[in-house]
């Protein structure tokens, strides 16, 4: 015959102190894992944003092939639509926010967007988009003010898209990278910027250059806050005019 006290003695198992120690160990382990996990999440978010920006670039090229021009950036009040979306007399589209606008996801039919129709990156921040206003806005215009007319009148050599992407903000001005060694591109037709994990707050001179509303941008690999020009985690890509010309020729929009 079993003694009733046997069951209770078996149930005693771990004491609360033992369990507390186990939980503490598990917590330490989880804590240790969370740091690399966070870093990995960041890498995944950057990869996802890279893909989003690549999709956006393709959408811009598709829009150009269909319309013979690039869309203007959206303004903060245009609800995800290009600003302006329709061009004026002669087909000229003078963008309201050529260098400090947002990607017009509604105009381009892009996803994902926030509730107001603006394309967002993996951190749910709005993707910024700049377009060249060179050649009297020919890149964003159609008809007599558009690219086709510009090429037919003065040739491809007359086209001078003027967005600049520099390797650092050191030495840059509102119109130049401050030396050939700092130039990544001086002929970009459009620039796309994700403000990265730290969002649109400016965390240093390099990130500030991407938010200051001029046609000079900065792109380099992510750097921590201790760097010379502060933290930088923006993801910047740009549209080569040569790819734009290729697509426009293929689509019959040029020459």
């Amino acid at each position: 015959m079993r003694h009733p006290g046997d069951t209770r003695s078996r149930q005693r198992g771990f004491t609360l102190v033992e369990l507390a120690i186990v939980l503490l160990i598990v917590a330490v382990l989880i804590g240790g894992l969370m740091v690399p996990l966070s870093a990995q999440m960041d890498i995944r978010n950057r990869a996802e944003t890279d893909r989003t920006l690549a999709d956006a670039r393709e959408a811009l090229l598709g829009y150009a092939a269909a319309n013979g021009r690039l869309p203007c950036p959206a303004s903060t009040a245009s609800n995800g639509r290009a600003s302006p979306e329709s061009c004026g007399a002669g087909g000229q589209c003078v963008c309201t926010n050529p260098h400090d606008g947002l990607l017009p996801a509604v105009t381009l039919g892009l996803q994902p967007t926030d509730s107001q129709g603006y394309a967002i990156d993996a951190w749910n921040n709005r993707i910024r988009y700049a377009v060249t206003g060179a050649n009297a806005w020919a890149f964003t215009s159609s008809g007599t003010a558009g690219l086709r007319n510009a090429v037919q009148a003065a040739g491809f050599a007359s086209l001078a898209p003027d967005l600049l992407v520099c390797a650092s903000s050191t030495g840059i001005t509102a119109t130049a990278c401050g030396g050939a060694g700092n130039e990544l591109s001086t002929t970009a037709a459009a620039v796309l910027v994700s403000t990265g994990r730290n969002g649109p707050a400016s965390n240093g001179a390099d990130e500030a250059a991407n938010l200051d509303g001029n046609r000079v941008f900065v792109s380099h690999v992510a750097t921590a806050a201790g760097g010379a020009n502060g933290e930088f985690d923006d993801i910047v890509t740009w549209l080569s005019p040569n790819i734009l010309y290729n697509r426009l020729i293929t689509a019959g929009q040029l020459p």
Partner: protein
Amino acid sequence: MSASARKQRGAALLALAAILAAGTLAVLVPHMLESPSASTRTRATSAALAHARDALIGWSAARDDEPGHNYRPGELPCPDRSAPGEAGYGYAEGSCSPGEIGRLPWKTLGLPELLDGDGEPLWYAIDGAFRWRWGPLVQTNPTQAPINSDTRATLQVYAADAVATHTPAGGEAAAVLFAAGGPLAGQARGNAAERTDARNYLDRIGPPAVAGALDNSHEGGPFFAGPVRDAAGNLVANDRAVIVTARDLMNAVAPRVEGVVVRVLKAYGVFSGRFPNPARFDAATCTDVAVDPSSSMPITVCGRDPAVCRGRLPEDLWTPYMPPRWFRYNLWSQTMYYAVGEVAVEHPAGCIAKLQVAGAPPADALILLPGSPLGAVMRNSPSQSTDLTQYLEDAQNQDGWSGFPAPDTYVPPGAGSNDRLRTL
């Protein structure tokens, strides 16, 4: 139940929660920490190569006259011989030899730095006939100097078995873009000298792994597109490649050429009231491809002939519209077929009143722009340069120079043709 037992029940729940948390992490963490899969890297490589190819073709198609330079549609930038970190990295060299290999000049092309799935910059080999040449053309081989729809590419690219070809006759490569991938055995990429040596990036294959010996780091090739594995499944080469053919380039350039021709003819039509007679297709001046090295202009002028109504676009009707220099010194007018109907021609020469094109209204004049040579066609040899069948693919369009059987009846280019028809 004792007071002690009641207390312990809550502890069991906590233990269960801890076990669940540990289990969940055990499932999630390896997934989160894994490096990009092979398919992800391959996708990144393919995207980078396609992006580069797009930009190269666009750069070439948009080349234009600029003061002091012989920039011309159809040419390609020289490769970049600098390594990452060096001052010239990203820019095309000022000159290059036929078949030269270097990195993709991404800054010259206006691109962001393109990296393959293994984080390596792309490499690039260029055909001699399509390479960018500064200043006056060097006429070491006059027949190769102009770049137009007669120009053939020569670079060969084989498949991973080193036998099948990606570049059949007529589809040779004007440029080859390589993704080098990670280093294989024997490839060192540490110091500056190693980083400028293509052999440390681009691979060689040969027997016994594959039947032929091919080397992607050898100027002029022949090249191959990997990856390549030996019979045991070991990776022996990890280069991936895409090609740009002469046809790719000329398809992009043709709309520009057509635009120039239409403008020339319309301007002349307005100026004289009629379209000009063509030049004779077999006139010596119209098959001479020599260009004056000092002026980069044709040495002889392929002029109008009042006795013909089917021939080539003449080179002496640049009034009132002067076409771009690139159009003239690359002898584009000699590459195309031009015919005018009796009602619109300056000097009647025996064509029917209006030219007939199947499925289209009768035309006053028409231009047929041949595409790049197909198969083994070599239009620069004298015996073939007067043979219209070497230029145009559709049989009904090939009798304009022979005058038989129905030279004034045409068809729009068919599915197997790379010609362009434009009526006026």
